[in-house]
């Protein structure tokens, strides 16, 4: 099986949770980083390709892995399985809008981190178009799902979604308590999903970091992410790309190397950004918590 994925976690939810789940369940997974989002059906990443079957979307990929008997949830009771579904719904409803906002809509984050990072990895001329498209889709999704009355301006919507996200993080922290994983001592689907959502917030260095700051105060969630990163995504010092390994039992080794490379990218991103030309600081009034900034946000947003 191979999983195609954009080489960095610019999509906060997909990708990392699929890989995390695969690692938990012991499924042999080759992670191929792709440079062209359009080569996947409907530009949807991550995509799992097993023999002839192509599956996109994390939930379906997890179902597929389960049917192939790579099941990290084997030990769970029926009630715990139901809890998994409920918590995943909570993550999607309460945490995802704020994540999308942090990565794709918040102007300073988008311009100084997400767009250059993303654009540096996909070929010209897609790099001019795709980041902007994803940014617009993210904003669209946020406004359509959360933007009705009585919230009438973008700043009010933003305030609400961050409030919801922080509450969601608090709930997760209470649920996790002092255990190592959400259901005892072995990780399951829920752990994979939570990790997939939290790890980008935790690790990526953004200029505007209110969600990250809140997360860092919840020490058990940080410990949870660190545990998974060190146990399942071993970080190595060098990330040299694997030369063609065709031996049958080199799958796991290849997997480890490719995943390490991906994890290293997160760490190296800081370096790359410091070396690349910086955008001049922009005076965008929405970023200051001043009253009456309603109209300025859409006007000041940069188009790619």
């Amino acid at each position: 099986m191979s999983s195609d994925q954009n080489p960095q976690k610019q999509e906060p939810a997909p990708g990392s949770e699929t890989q995390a789940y695969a690692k938990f369940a012991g499924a042999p997974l080759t992670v191929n980083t792709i440079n062209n989002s359009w080569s996947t059906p409907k530009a949807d990443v991550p995509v799992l390709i097993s023999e002839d079957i192509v599956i996109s979307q994390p939930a379906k990929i997890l179902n597929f892995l389960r049917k192939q008997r790579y099941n990290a949830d084997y030990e769970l009771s029926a009630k715990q399985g139901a809890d998994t579904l409920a918590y995943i719904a909570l993550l999607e409803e309460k945490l995802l809008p704020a994540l999308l906002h942090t990565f794709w809509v918040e102007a300073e984050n988008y311009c100084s981190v997400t767009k250059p990072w993303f654009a540096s990895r996909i070929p010209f001329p897609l790099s001019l178009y795709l980041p902007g498209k994803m940014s617009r889709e993210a904003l669209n999704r946020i406004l359509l799902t959360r933007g009705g009355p009585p919230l009438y301006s973008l700043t009010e919507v933003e305030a609400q979604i961050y409030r919801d996200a922080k509450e969601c993080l608090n709930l997760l922290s209470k649920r996790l308590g002092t255990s190592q994983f959400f259901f005892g001592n072995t990780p399951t689907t829920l752990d994979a999903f939570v990790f997939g959502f939290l790890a980008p917030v935790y690790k990526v260095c953004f200029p505007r970091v209110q969600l990250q700051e809140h997360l860092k105060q919840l020490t058990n969630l940080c410990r949870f992410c660190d545990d998974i990163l060190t146990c399942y995504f071993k970080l190595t010092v060098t990330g040299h790309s694997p030369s063609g390994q065709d031996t049958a039992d080199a799958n796991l080794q290849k997997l480890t190397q490719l995943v390490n490379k991906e994890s290293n990218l997160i760490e190296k991103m800081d370096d790359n950004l410091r070396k690349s030309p910086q955008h001049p600081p922009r005076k965008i009034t929405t970023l200051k918590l001043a009253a009456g900034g309603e109209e300025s946000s859409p006007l000041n947003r940069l188009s790619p």
Partner: protein
Amino acid sequence: AEPWPENAALYQQLKEDQILLSDNAASLAVQAFLQMCNLPVRVVCRANAEYMSPSGKVPFIHVGNQVVSELGPIVQFVKAKGHSLSDGLDEVQKAEMKAYMELVNNMLLTAELYLQWCDDVTVEEITHPRYGSPYPWPLNRILSYQKQWEIRRKMKAIGWAGKSLEQVLEDVDQCCQALSQRLGTQPYFFNKQPTELDALVFGHLFTILTTQLITDELSEKVKNYGNLTAFCRRIEQQYFEGHDKDSSATASARYAKRSLLR
């Protein structure tokens, strides 16, 4: 805080002709919640309830001089007045309750909206005639199309537009399975006492079970789980029977599709 007044009112669309599946579910959930809190409220049906609501969604309650819409804010409002169903829960249980409420909103409510507004047969035969029924032509068509366009945009944004009806029904099944497994053999989700989660689940499941649509596929999915139907019956008996004849619960059982004259 002021005490709960006697003349509190809950507003929704017209029961017999206008209200749709998802709105009926929401309204029933709020009614169940208020009954569980022992707070009297009378149900008022108005064709323009949606437009009166501060958030554009029904139901909304008019209490004293305040107007609050949707279950979430209503629960908060009632809590501020000193009534709460979930005070006895510990932190982990509260987190679980909120998660399950999101599950119902995420899957059940979205599936209901999909069925109502994205399934062409249902739209044509049930939704459009009902939604615009209080208004003359061409206003009825215009309003229906406008609403349909709005809902379809939202479905597209969250990725449900590409789903087929079978996939949506499968999601409903998955959700019901999760609810059934969580409920188990207990009378309520958090054992002895009902909470807002029970009210929400009741609102949706009872409406699905008693609403007649083009096919019975949706209600069959719920009927597969005996403990869920028993749960609905239990709450209906405890909180809705013995009230006046046209309480929303029993009235929705008379919801009939309009194309019988074909």
